[in-house]
């Protein structure tokens, strides 16, 4: 009887330790998966932000033939927070907000925010609150007078 119970004990300990091992291994696996998922997500968002940033710097407004970022900077320097920029009698004016919104909405559907940091002020576009920011991309902007500004594009939940 004693021998039988001892045998049962050993068997039980083997089974338990095997189960523990399986749990341990699967936990390890899932946490690694989570990490990989997070890294992947970070990479995807990072790349998307990078693409949006590069498009702002490299795509031109059709009629005005100015870079998007140039229109944003010119607008901020010309009329401050009023979002308009006037490019002369032949081109007339354009609304900077109307340029930015559809451009970012197609990628991030309202969950974005652009901060334009100028030497004397910071202009914010988009409705995403600062505390809800998940990922950001930033780059320097040359300003026409020789100063340097910064653009920060953020997305969040």
């Amino acid at each position, binding site marked *: 009887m004693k021998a039988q119970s001892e*045998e049962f004990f050993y068997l039980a300990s*083997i089974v338990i330790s095997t189960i523990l*091992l399986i749990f341990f291994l699967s936990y390890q696996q899932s946490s690694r998966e989570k990490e990989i998922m997070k*890294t992947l997500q970070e990479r995807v968002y990072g790349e998307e932000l990078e693409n949006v*940033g590069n498009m702002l*710097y490299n795509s031109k407004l059709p009629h005005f033939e100015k870079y998007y970022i140039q229109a944003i900077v010119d607008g901020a320097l010309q009329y401050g927070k009023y979002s308009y920029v006037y490019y002369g*009698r032949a081109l007339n004016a354009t609304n900077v907000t109307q340029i930015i919104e559809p451009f970012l909405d197609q990628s991030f559907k309202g969950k974005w925010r652009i901060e334009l940091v100028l030497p004397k002020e910071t202009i914010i576009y988009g409705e995403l609150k600062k505390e809800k920011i998940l990922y950001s991309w930033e780059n320097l902007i040359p300003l026409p007078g*020789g100063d340097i500004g910064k653009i920060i594009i953020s997305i969040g939940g």
Partner: protein
Amino acid sequence: MKSQIIPISFLLLSVSLIIVGFVFYNVFYGKKYEEKISEIKILDATRNVIENAKSYLKLSLVYSSSRAMREQAMSGGSIGAGAWICSRPNPLPVSISKRCLENYTQYYLNMYAGEFNTTLPLSVYIKNFSSLIYQIEEYSVFKGLYDEGNFTILAKDSIISAISKDIKIKDIRVSENLNISELITKNRFWYMFRIFTEWASEDPFSPCICSVLGCACPSQSGDESCSSCLSYADMCAKYALKNLQNRFDEYVVCKVENVCCMQGRGPPCLEPPGCIGWSSKRCSARCEHSCIFYENLYYFSEKESFYQVSGCESPYCTTTTTLSPPTTTTIPPITTIPTTTITEQKECIVYDCYSYYWHEARLSAAYIFTCTDYKYYISSPKGPAPLTFSVIAYASFRDPQRCKAIVKCNCPSTATKCEECIPACTPCFGEIKTVPC
């Protein structure tokens, strides 16, 4: 029971070996894998920083060129440009303006490049661009090919390097040669340059100044502020302004501003007649065109300019000088000398002798002609603003025979003929008559 200890301990040993193996795998191999991943991450970040720097430099090139063009348009096409009309047509050559634009754009671009940095743990180094070219042909400028811009700026021979600062990972260095180019559109610098050149080549200003030189005849000294000549000089400037305005389209508005105006009278009886150059000490302009390169140049306001016109400040000179002694000639009074005749009736001799007299007339005037293009606005520190192009027109002439008059000669009492009288500029003519007193 004893027989079961061996398989059980073997089983336990295998389980512990698996665990230890797993741990070791994670600690050593996993770490190595992790290092590789972070190396790739840093490499990616480095490449992204380089891409960001390229975008930044591309925009810097746009702003550098618009800054150079704005400044040089304000200074007459090149910083250091002389007068476009300098008593004769003297337009700025395209080559000087182009070279000056290249120098300044390159300087500003390198200034922007030096400001680039990143918040990531990376050291970014951008070598200065050693060459910058405006792809402009003189022939095409005058054909109007660049009237709306549509020319390319090419910045060459720079290197960008990014080095990781992470001490855990071996140094990652990414370097790339940088050549950036930008097509400039909606910019009418060369349009304004072309129209100003055509206007200056025709020169509607200097001949007008020459034609009104007679206004300087009442001058009191050799070089004095315009009084009698100011309205004439202004009239010439307005005529030239109208001529200039008519050459531009409806988007350009021109104005003229007086810089200085001096008039004077010169020595009498000089030859030959006609307008010849005069250099007023207080109203003169540089006629040679050059490109002056200021190392620490900053943006200047619309009012400031690099013109160096010596003499009084605008609007008009207020002080007068007597640089040469007055050269007025005293016109002798009609002389009648009483004489006695045989019939004892008193008779007088009338010396009705005349001579031509003239003295030199001098006039020097400089005006700034400023035209503003409202068609396209270009970037400025206060947002897009119209492009303003200013040139100086300067004319300075003297005509030795412009102030001509007939004056009475001074005759001695012994004179019997007019030729014996003291002439002014030409021998005296007329007659000496004896009339009853």
